[in-house]
């Protein structure tokens, strides 16, 4: 990484660089979506910078943000100077940053992957099709509100007879922590198989602020409150019993 790149960018482009940061020597600049392509072009063309090596382009979903839900990030390097830089922009759902595939050929597939996984379109991309998933797939699986256990089979599943596979495998296969039956759990059923999975459940709840997750959280809170109330009632009943025993 290199402070020199950040310095050069802020000196040359001024307030088009909205934010700079340095985490453990990893330097990053943030730009507006409208400046995305121009700044990238500058990185590549500038005599001093010569960022000719496209490393990666990816996205991050932040469903908890009020606006501009996605971060799109670019990692670039200069093979002449050894400098690296990360460039980030905040993108709203439906907003389209321009394609970088005319600047670095390698951005073509990376942008297709971001489209496939996050549903972010890139303006003027030459061939924006899904790259990993199939055309029949509905939705974008790395969005955090995509249901974690939702599959979209291309071949309808066969009925499979129970042949005595041991748990957690069997008719309902897969990792148990991803198959939590929330309704059953809230009704008092316990299908938890190990304490570690409880941690996983906690992670899953906080991962997403989607409406479904909020509803589930509300129901859990209600249940915990009810249990606490009942616990308190039982305690006071115990105390009363002891009191009458004296």
């Amino acid at each position, binding site marked *: 990484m290199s402070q020199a790149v950040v310095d050069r960018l802020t000196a040359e482009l001024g307030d088009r660089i909205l934010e700079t940061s340095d985490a453990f020597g990893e330097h990053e600049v943030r730009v507006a979506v409208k400046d995305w392509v121009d700044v990238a072009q500058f990185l590549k063309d500038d005599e001093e910078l010569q960022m000719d090596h496209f490393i990666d382009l990816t996205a991050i979903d932040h469903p908890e943000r009020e606006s501009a839900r996605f971060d799109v990030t670019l990692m670039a390097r200069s093979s002449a100077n050894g400098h690296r830089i990360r460039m980030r922009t905040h993108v709203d759902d439906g907003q389209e940053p321009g394609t970088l595939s005319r600047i670095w050929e390698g951005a073509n597939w990376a942008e297709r992957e971001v489209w496939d996984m996050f549903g972010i379109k890139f303006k003027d991309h030459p061939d924006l099709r899904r790259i990993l*998933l199939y055309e029949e797939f509905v939705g974008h699986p790395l969005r955090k509100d*995509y249901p974690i256990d*939702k*599959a979209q089979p291309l*071949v309808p*599943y*066969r009925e499979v007879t129970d*042949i005595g596979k041991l748990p957690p*495998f069997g008719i309902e296969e*897969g990792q148990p922590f991803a198959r939590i039956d929330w309704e059953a759990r809230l009704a008092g059923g316990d299908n938890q198989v190990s304490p570690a999975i409880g941690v996983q459940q906690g992670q899953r709840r906080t991962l997403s602020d989607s409406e479904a997750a909020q509803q589930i959280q509300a129901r859990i809170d209600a249940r915990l409150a009810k249990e606490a109330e009942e616990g308190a009632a039982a305690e006071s009943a115990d105390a009363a019993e002891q009191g009458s025993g004296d």
Partner: protein
Amino acid sequence: MGELKVIGGGGEVAVTTRLSDLLQWARKWSLFQYPFVTACCGMEFMATAAPRYDIARFGAEAPRFSPRQSDVLWVVGTISQRQGPAVRRIWEQMADPKWVIAFGTCASCGGFYDNYTTIPGVDKVIPVDVYIPGCPPRPEAVLDALMLLQEKIQANDRRPVVVPPRQILHNAPGRTRGESS
């Protein structure tokens, strides 16, 4: 080879059995395989096929990369949703009688992948005869599966089975090394 009857004696002996038994016997010792290898389990599949474990001892050494020439489909590794139609089609192209072995946990039940992209067990798409648990299974387990399949072919039994764990013999040679006995 089913029930054998010996007729005659002295210099001239004939052995009779049922034609179906003879056929099944021939089938079980000449399993041409179609390896559908997609992931890490493939390494163990190669180990099984290589000389140390020598799958040729069971008449199953010949891989055929055309489904029309093969008898047993080895599904080795993780099968993604996108591969579902391909594996289904390969299975459909195989001529009867045909068998399917699900090699490893992923092929048997999806393993630790439970997400939008993995088929939770290839048996959701094609019928499986023998499941080999293990991530990946050791070559011994693979050979166990092959022998199990041979037994099932001889008995004309199409019920799916899981390869059972091997019994550990505590008094087997090598296990007691260093212990006074």
